[in-house]
């Protein structure tokens, strides 16, 4: 069985701050530095979704990329694009919106919509030089 990986790239812009509510402002500033600015800062996030499987004998597709694109738009872009991750999304009210946590949240949202027979991995770029991958 010849497995193939297919990738879809998307992007979204969002504001956030790194903040642990269990710590006071001093400790947050000490640990997270300028990333903890109470007025927020922001990024152009780039998301790469990887789906692995055996191409379907009828279509030749691992997954229809139009469907993957639509699912990513609905589950991720509609929730995160031009939003404040801390204030405007339900996921980061009590979860620090680090790139690591954002990747896990995105994976869970997509996993629920993609055929369980296909492997899924997400890579999230916070800047061109800082990126994370889940699952590791």
């Amino acid at each position, binding site marked *: 069985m010849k497995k193939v990986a297919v990738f879809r790239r998307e992007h979204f812009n969002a504001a956030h701050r790194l903040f642990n509510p269990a710590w006071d402002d001093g400790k947050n500033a000490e640990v997270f530095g300028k990333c903890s600015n109470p007025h927020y800062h*922001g990024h152009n996030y780039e998301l790469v979704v990887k789906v692995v499987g055996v191409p379907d004998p009828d279509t030749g597709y691992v997954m229809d990329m139009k469907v993957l694109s639509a699912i990513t738009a609905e589950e991720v872009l509609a929730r995160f*694009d031009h*939003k404040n991750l801390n204030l405007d999304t339900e996921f980061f009210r009590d979860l620090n919106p680090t790139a690591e946590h954002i990747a896990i949240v995105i994976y869970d949202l997509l996993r629920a919509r993609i055929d369980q027979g296909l492997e899924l991995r997400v890579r999230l770029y916070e800047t061109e030089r800082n990126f994370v991958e889940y699952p590791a």
Partner: protein
Amino acid sequence: MVYLTRLEHFNAAHKLYNPGWDREKNEAVFGKCANENWHGHNYELHVTIKGDPDPDTGFVFDVKRLGEIIREHVIEKLDHKNLNLDVDFMRGKQCSTENLAVGIWNELQQHLPADICLHLVKLYETPRIYVEYLGP
């Protein structure tokens, strides 16, 4: 005449919002960029100066010094900040990429040596959107 360019980058939150308009009009004009709770970008800044290379050094200007001036007077004020709330030279102005490029030009002009001719401020808001300002 030789043109010398230095690249720097910063991350910031902002929103597009005209306080003279009501919420509905702001959303009609600025769309999701008017999100009340901000969004953000990875900005990339290109600063170009022009001049004749010095006969002794071969430099138009010491590019290391140019980088220090940009970082001290521009990047320090913008990086991991909220452009609408945290930046003195953007106070009372619409935080569009256009206005930000003009603001950066004005800051640099004040701090570059008098004999250095600033040629271009090119500012990327996303990899696909950028503005250029060539001065007044």
